[in-house]
């Protein structure tokens, strides 16, 4: 019991520390101001985040990390999702899991931002693809690189390993597209770009990023829902608070159920990643969580718009920011459909019973 209580206490402290960056119930002015800017986040805030040790939370203490587990990381990221924090914690933490010790210091300090570039086609969880590294030169094309505008270097997955490519190296071209949340995706074309070979395989780091994204979506949908409940408790129509209308009440309950299922699923998956090494079991848990988080976040945020009525359709209303975030993250690191299919493929039937 004591160990469990200790752990709960440390999770609580971690969540509290997130308030420094994403004040609970705080306004979203900073988030709004950063939208559609480049790089789409604030480098100074990123350094604060690094000062708190978050990109290295999962790393061993001897390489500058905090030695904590996925349960802690997920708890933290959920808080950041509630605040729609745009700084690239999830991709950088993924890169940090893959970089060798001698590359970590500048990344963990925030001096350099390294973003993984692993994806080569839409709707895919294949972390390798066809990009090649040969004679110190990398050639290939990577898509949907998140918050790419802020990257100093890319950790590119190649056949047989990884390659670290500086953004300003010759043969590197980066095309940016804006995303609904005000951030950006990069398409990275590598044409014999000089690169440093890094040993390793991104698959497991990708699982962690997918689960962290689920937690971010959980935090986001929960906050959007809380804001909508507040609105329902104050908005008057027909001489009544709209939250008193039973049809809206029951719809709100259905959203609450989805949020509860997502929380249970995400937390159970984090516990699995912390305790189980069998790849199929890890993938099964992550796919379950991401499939739920993706669908639930789209459902919850779209209903929050509907429950807010006309005001919900204005860009000026904050709930819309959460909908846009769900649109960006739902299909990133695998859509619900992709994760459902993977769940079916890796999960033996009897595990359902």
């Amino acid at each position, binding site marked *: 019991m004591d160990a469990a209580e200790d752990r709960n206490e440390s999770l609580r402290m971690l969540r509290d520390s997130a308030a420094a960056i994403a004040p609970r119930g705080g306004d979203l002015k900073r988030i709004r101001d950063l939208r*559609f800017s480049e790089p789409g986040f604030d480098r100074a805030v990123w350094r604060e985040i690094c000062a708190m040790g978050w990109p290295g939370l999962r790393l061993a203490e001897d390489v500058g990390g905090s030695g904590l587990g996925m349960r802690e990381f997920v708890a933290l990221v959920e808080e950041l999702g509630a605040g729609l924090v745009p700084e690239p914690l999830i991709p950088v933490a993924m890169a940090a899991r893959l970089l060798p010790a001698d590359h970590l210091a500048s990344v963990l300090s925030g001096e350099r931002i390294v973003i993984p570039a692993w*994806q080569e086609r*839409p*709707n895919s969880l294949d972390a390798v693809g066809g990009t090649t590294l040969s004679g110190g030169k990398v050639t290939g094309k990577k*898509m*949907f690189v998140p918050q790419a505008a802020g990257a100093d270097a890319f950790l590119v997955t190649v056949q047989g390993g990884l390659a670290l490519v500086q953004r300003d190296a010759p043969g590197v071209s980066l095309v940016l*597209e*804006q*995303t*609904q*949340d005000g951030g950006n*995706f990069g398409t990275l074309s590598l044409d014999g770009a000089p690169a440093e070979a890094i040993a390793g395989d991104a698959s497991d780091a990708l699982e962690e990023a997918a689960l962290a994204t689920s937690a971010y979506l959980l935090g986001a949908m929960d906050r959007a829902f809380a804001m909508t409940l507040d609105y329902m408790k104050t908005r*008057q*129509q*027909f001489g009544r608070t709209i939250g008193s*209308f039973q*049809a*809206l009440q029951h719809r709100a309950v259905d959203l609450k159920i989805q949020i509860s299922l997502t929380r249970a699923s995400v937390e159970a998956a984090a516990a699995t990643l912390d305790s189980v090494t069998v790849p199929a079991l890890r993938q099964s848990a992550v796919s379950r969580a991401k499939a739920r988080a993706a669908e639930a976040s*789209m459902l919850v945020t*779209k209903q929050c*718009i*509907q429950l807010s*009525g*006309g*005001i*919900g*359709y*204005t*860009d*000026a209303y904050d709930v*819309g920011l959460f*909908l*846009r975030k769900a*649109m*960006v*993250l*739902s*299909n*990133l690191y695998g*859509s*619900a*459909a992709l994760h459902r299919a993977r769940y079916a493929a890796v999960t033996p039937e009897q595990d359902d019973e």
Partner: protein
Amino acid sequence: MNSPAASARDPQDYNTLDDDTFRITVRRWVEANYPPEIRNPPKRLHWHENKVWFFKLSEKGWLAPSWPREFGGMGLSSSKQLIMIEEFERHGCCRFNDHGVIMVGPLLIQHGTEAQKQHFLPKILSGEYIWCQGYSEPNAGSDLAALRTEAVLDGDHYVINGQKIWTTLAMDANWIFCLVRTDKNAKKQEGISFLLIPMDTPGITVRPIITLDMHDEFCETFFDNVRVPRENLVGQVNKGWTMAKALLGFERIFLGAPKQSQYALARLKQLAERMGVWEDESFQDRYVRLRLDIADLRELHATYVEIVRRGETLGPDVSQLKTWQTELFQRITELSLEIAGENAALLDPMEGNRELHPSGLYLQARPATIYGGSNEIQRNIVAKNVLELPDR
């Protein structure tokens, strides 16, 4: 505002044609005259974009199919009007700034003074006066009768104070037709009147609302001691509510037309092909459900069109149509987002092709269940007035 072309009166009485001949006549004229660059616009166009079509219709004398011929309309029967709408939709004609023709004209023809008719109707048809609608307010949305924008008589003028919201294309308009409260002590639906107000009257401020899909179709309109002559009142004082409700008659069949859903389904198919899921059995399973939902919507819509064609009044059950169509439209755009993969995130269309823009269409579909009476209100209407379920 550009200076309008002269409006014409079409000398022909099209009611004398049989339906097929009329349909062909309309189709040929539209094909010859509609500006190709604004076919099937993905968003509602502004005046500067759609006025070329407005003036084409105005010059032809086809702007007001429903108005009596004596006022410059075509005086068409209901069934002929529907044929015109069908042909315009078939060709992908845009909606222009039509509040004058659809709302203000019929209102004045029925309730206006002789002087109002003579002044306003020609200027509506010529495009000199372009209108927006001042109904909703921040605290009077679903509960429209709770509106508080006030008009107080001061000598020969009304003095207006308050705020309207969701005034469609107000920045394009030079006149607004408003519901205002003229008696604060009366019961909610009573004490409301109809006023016509020039947008350049001192004290009016218009602020565009940026919507989720980053469009500026709607505005907020503020009234600060705005003075208009009392002749601008339409109909009897404090009787505006009844007149406004009658004008809403057609809206629900319009919002329940299958066009939006059909457009979205065609985009879904394009996207599915592009994403390589078109042949997937599980996609096809969901796609055919949506096809059937549209097919049955088309049949249900046709039964309401038939009522209109017979010249009968639509009952409250037409709210079913609006509810089903708008939610179907949304479901189609939701499936589009699901299959779009990471492209669902993009702000702009995929690959520069405006027909591959699942995030845009998804966001555009959101207000369909909110405007024109939210679907919650539509369900209340059906529950009470069709199913006759009790209040307590």
